[in-house]
């Protein structure tokens, strides 16, 4: 706009056409543009190009193999497992960590001073390194000497055995957790929720402070008797923008899950590849096995999912949640 106006002014003062202001504009934009192209667009384009080849790092050349990498992604059972694991993780972790985050934020918000203590406690896992935490969890989930199974064993011989899980566990031993393909991905989900909801809580708390207090009073005067009615009438709509943001961030973070799996199963993505998530697949194919082509193809797919989520967020934000 400014550039446009000044160029008009320049035209008035100098009858000869002079595009100096336009050039100055481009000059000012150039550094940012160059950086963006260099570190964002070019790598994405390169990955996109490589996904149609069989390139390996160190090779002098490569062959174009067309859509073969993508075809593999949608036909091989390994990649089917990858999609199942990734979507299981996303579909489980996102709603629960957003829900828990919102619940915790509402509870913490309703407290006074003590709220700060809860806030700190819930936020601790977010600040801690997930890799270190994963090692701690690995110890706790050890089938024989781990704290989890030791604790569960204490329930043997009590009325807890009425519950089929305990009855089975006391008779045949409790789950192997990380070694059991039925449990592995759920353990990863649990750790993802445990680690992530504190972050969501903090975002929701920030959203809650912007809710006008008089709105609650207005709702009360209008006859909203229960906390639930006030939540639907005031809190939830006011948290709309926050919720969209939290859900998007949670989705992207869920798609990016990697360190837990790398810490638990460095050699292969869980028992029977039951926790073989996308990020781990990219790492395994592209870096460990030096199959750049297939690694790039997974990356492109990953990018597509994230892009899709971001577009949905933009659309929602612009249409629905801003009043």
């Amino acid at each position, binding site marked *: 706009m400014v550039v446009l106006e000044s160029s008009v002014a320049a035209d008035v003062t100098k009858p000869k056409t002079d595009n100096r202001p336009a050039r100055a504009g481009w000059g000012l934009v150039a550094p940012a543009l160059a950086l963006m192209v260099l570190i964002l667009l070019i790598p994405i384009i390169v990955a996109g190009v490589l996904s149609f080849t069989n390139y390996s790092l160190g090779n002098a050349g490569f062959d174009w193999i067309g859509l073969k990498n993508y075809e593999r992604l949608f036909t091989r059972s390994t990649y089917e497992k990858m999609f199942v694991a990734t979507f299981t993780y996303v579909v489980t972790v996102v709603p629960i960590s957003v829900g828990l985050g919102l619940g915790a934020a509402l509870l913490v918000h309703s407290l006074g001073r003590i709220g700060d203590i809860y806030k700190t406690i819930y936020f601790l896992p977010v600040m801690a390194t997930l890799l270190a935490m994963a090692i701690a969890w690995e110890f706790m989930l050890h089938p024989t000497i781990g704290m989890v199974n030791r604790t569960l064993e204490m329930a043997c011989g009590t009325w807890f055995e009425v519950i089929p899980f305990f009855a089975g566990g006391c008779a045949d031993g409790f789950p192997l957790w990380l070694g059991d393909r039925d449990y592995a991905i759920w353990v990863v989900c649990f750790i993802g929720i445990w680690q992530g909801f504190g972050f969501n809580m903090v975002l929701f708390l920030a959203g809650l402070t912007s809710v*006008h207090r008089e*709105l609650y*009073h207005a709702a*009360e*005067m*209008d006859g909203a008797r229960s906390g639930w*009615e006030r939540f639907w009438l005031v809190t939830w709509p006011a948290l709309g923008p926050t919720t969209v943001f939290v859900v998007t961030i949670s989705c992207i973070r869920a798609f990016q899950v990697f360190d837990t799996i790398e810490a638990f199963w460095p050699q292969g993505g869980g028992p029977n590849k039951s926790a073989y998530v996308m990020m781990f697949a990219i790492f395994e194919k592209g870096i460990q096995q030096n199959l750049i082509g297939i690694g790039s193809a997974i990356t492109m797919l990953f990018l597509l999912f994230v892009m899709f989520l971001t577009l949905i967020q933009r659309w929602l934000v612009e249409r629905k949640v801003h*009043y």
Partner: protein
Amino acid sequence: MSDLHIASVTKHFGETSVLKGVTLDVKDGEFISLVGPSGCGKSTLLRIIAGLETPTSGTIAIGGAEVTQLRAADRNLSMVFQSYALYPHLTVAENIAVPLQMRQMTALQRLPVLGGILPGARTHKDDIAQAVRHAAEMLEIAALLDRKPGQLSGGQRQRVALGRALVRDPAAFLLDEPLSNLDAKLRVQTRAEIAELHRRLKATFIYVTHDQVEAMTMSDRIAVMMGGEILQCAAPDVIYEDPDDIRVAEFIGSPKINVLPLERNGSALMLFDQVLNSHLSTESPKVMQMGLRPEALQLTQSKPHLTGRVVHLENLGSEVFAQVALDSNGSRVTLRAMPAQRHRLGLGAQVGLSFDLSAAIIFDAGGARLRHVEGAVTCAPEVA
């Protein structure tokens, strides 16, 4: 609609005492203003009446039934908030409909899709839509029903807030400084509209404001609050002409009332060594204060009570306010003069002022009204 009875209500926030025993009776259909400087407890009192705060002690009764322990949602009162507090995600029509939906429909009937197919929901919805339209027409906002609050101007939002309050038939309307966010012109217009609305609805209005002009122009009665107490509750003209307390006299009236020191010397009433009257009872206090409204002072050339120099002039067109620094003690008094007298009121001009002692309002040193002294001095007029 019913009368409202507030009995010795107190409110403490920790150590600070915000209300110190307020008692007030509001008759059915009355428009009463709670007016006072900020921090006087008027908004807290309104919120206690509404049920949004609980009083530390004392009772509130609406229509003879005690409601002190009843929550706000069950008191059948409507409130207009200073910030209007409209639900930003709902349209104007939906905003106005909220109080009716909350009270007339069950939680199930209010559900977005499922609610519509439940028995009775349809008729309720039609009734509510009808009521909303009626309220909107009354406030001339029918054209705005589909807009969101974010798309409205301050004045329009204010009307929507009023609409939400009057869409149902509450026992009383509570208004918490509803005009303070409007510009001056709109405020004058809305003031008249609210007063007219009150006449039309014949409902009880309790109106909180810090603006004495609003209180004076709209109310049947004004309760002047200061320091957590009601100093005086009376009709606007009584509050203006016959205040009980110097703080009331000083708060109501613009420009502010002039206060001059009086002394009793024997049975003589003295103003700056001048005897105003010599028939005073010797039981009257030695030190007193005299309040004189700007319009009670007149310009005079012969035998002035006060002399001084004009230090500031405000010409409002229809009248002129002049501040005069008195020769006696340097304090300033405000005089209201007619535009015809302007030529005598040049800046720095020496002027003489006189007044009729019957127009003076006399207070003791603490600020309480001394009606018997006024009676004594006006029965035997002997202005020197």
